[in-house]
């Protein structure tokens, strides 16, 4: 039954390595693969950015190609990070004796799935934009979705941080 934790961590680590390698590779050609910039861009800025990526060649492909691959791989990353977030939350919850805070950590399961869901929707929109940005009115911005997603990510990290601090304090008290 350890297959799932192994799978989640593998996907998580693989995707991070892949994104880092891709980012550095494009950078080595003097360009920037700014996926976050695209996620938060307004409709006009987003369209301009995609046009720019389409014109800019890295090795044999344009940056838009790298962005598309990046977004497809992001689906694997989503499976990985949602799984990892659930595993971390569960581990923190198992050590939290305060019923109220235990309940708050349990909410991290929901937050993790919510982040994953928003990320999937965002990716679908981004891919649609990447394939259809030339068509009139086809571009849909993801700024609101991304802001919501990262706000929830922030909330998740705050809960984890507090849980972690509480765990360290409890451990020190015990020792």
């Amino acid at each position, binding site marked *: *039954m350890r297959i799932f934790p192994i799978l989640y961590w593998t996907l998580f680590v693989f995707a991070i390595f892949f994104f880092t390698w891709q980012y550095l590779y494009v950078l080595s050609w003097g360009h920037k693969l700014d996926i976050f910039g695209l996620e938060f861009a307004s409709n006009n800025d987003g369209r301009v950015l995609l046009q720019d990526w389409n014109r800019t060649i890295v090795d044999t492909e344009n940056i838009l190609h790298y962005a598309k691959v990046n977004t497809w791989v992001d689906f694997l990353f989503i499976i990985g990070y949602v799984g990892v977030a659930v595993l971390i939350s569960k581990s923190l919850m*198992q050590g939290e*004796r305060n*019923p109220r805070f235990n*309940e708050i950590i*349990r909410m991290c399961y929901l937050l993790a799935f919510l982040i994953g869901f928003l990320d999937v929707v965002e990716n679908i929109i981004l891919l649609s934009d990447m394939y259809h940005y030339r068509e009139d009115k086809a571009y849909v911005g993801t700024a609101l979705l991304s802001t919501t997603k990262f706000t929830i990510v922030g909330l998740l990290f705050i809960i984890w941080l507090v849980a972690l601090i509480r765990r360290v304090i409890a451990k020190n008290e015990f020792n």
Partner: protein
Amino acid sequence: MILRRTPKIKRLRPSKPRNEDENDPIDDLLRNRLSLTSLVHLREKVTADELSDIIQRIYDLNEKYIQRLSMVEGALHRLNELKNSQRNRVFRKRMKQEFWERKGEKHVIVVEGDSWFNYPVLLTDLIDRIGMEKNFALYSVAAGGDWLLNMLSAREYIEELSVIHPDVFLISGGGNDLVGSNRIAAMLEPTGLCQEIEHSELSQFLLERANRDAVPFNETTFNLGAGFLSRDFFALLQFFHLQYWFLLNGVLRNGAKDGDKFYPIKIVTQGYDFAIPNSELRFGTNLLLWYVPIIRKFLGHGGWLKRPMLLRGVFDQQKQEAIVYAMIYLFNEMMIYTGQELNKKFGGNFVFHIDSRGSVGRDGWADELHPKPRHFMRTGEAFVACIKNESPTYKNVFVVSQMFPE
């Protein structure tokens, strides 16, 4: 399909020749006409085969079918295994030298039980809370959905007791035997005018000896509920007593005297709280309770109590709640009595009971049978207090609502 436990199907022995005038105590038990004296006599000599015979006759089913009913299969089985494997990994990690070098009391615990001890992933159950104690090393064979009947026949706990030699054994069982597979429907007499309780010497005795200062007794509700309980319920109550006696007596025979295999062992039981028949999903605005509708939608909510009662024509909510009240009240009293009798027999305080009655309240339920985590955790703290040898509320009983009043 994976079956978790495959107990051997034993053939019933031919019954011993019996004197014409002599009543068969098992027949009396099934007819709810067994005297307390006969029950006391019966529990000392009852065999596994006779227990099997009794349950077949209470449920009107053959042994093979009962064992199929009681087995934990499919996804639930896998979730049980997952949780146990995680717990037991922690157990093995803790059972290293530094555990024994730690300051303070240390306890090695074996756990056998049902979903109050092993609830899949979403809820923090009793054992999750007990396992938070760093000085406890806890090995679990508990399985959500497990029947006491199955625990007894599989005897998985015996193997672990023999190997691990714990100083504490926790057991929770009986709930699924009563409410699993719509069984509760068979225990009801829908007119509400049933007088079977008057013929149950055990129940009368339990009501007389109950400590009503520690756990308040609502006589009106109890009487309303008891009117719906058929003789099968009282037969089952006596059967639970025999099962627990058989199980705990067996453990204590090897753990109550210096030099015994499991000596000194402490056994802690629990008896659930007054659950509320309900089939609502309960979507709400409190994000902290996001899991409630999910649990209720996918994990059997409404099917344990509400549906079987409706099937039997008990439609009134108040009556439904009163039925559960009477059942749980008697079940807890039976557990307390069983523990105290065993303590008397073995001459010491070996068996303790965690009494959760009235501790969860109306809004404290995640679904029909399982409290929300904060209540599980509170009951878990009562277990911790018991394991750490703190003073009981009275005799061998820790009353959760007294220990942690809201």
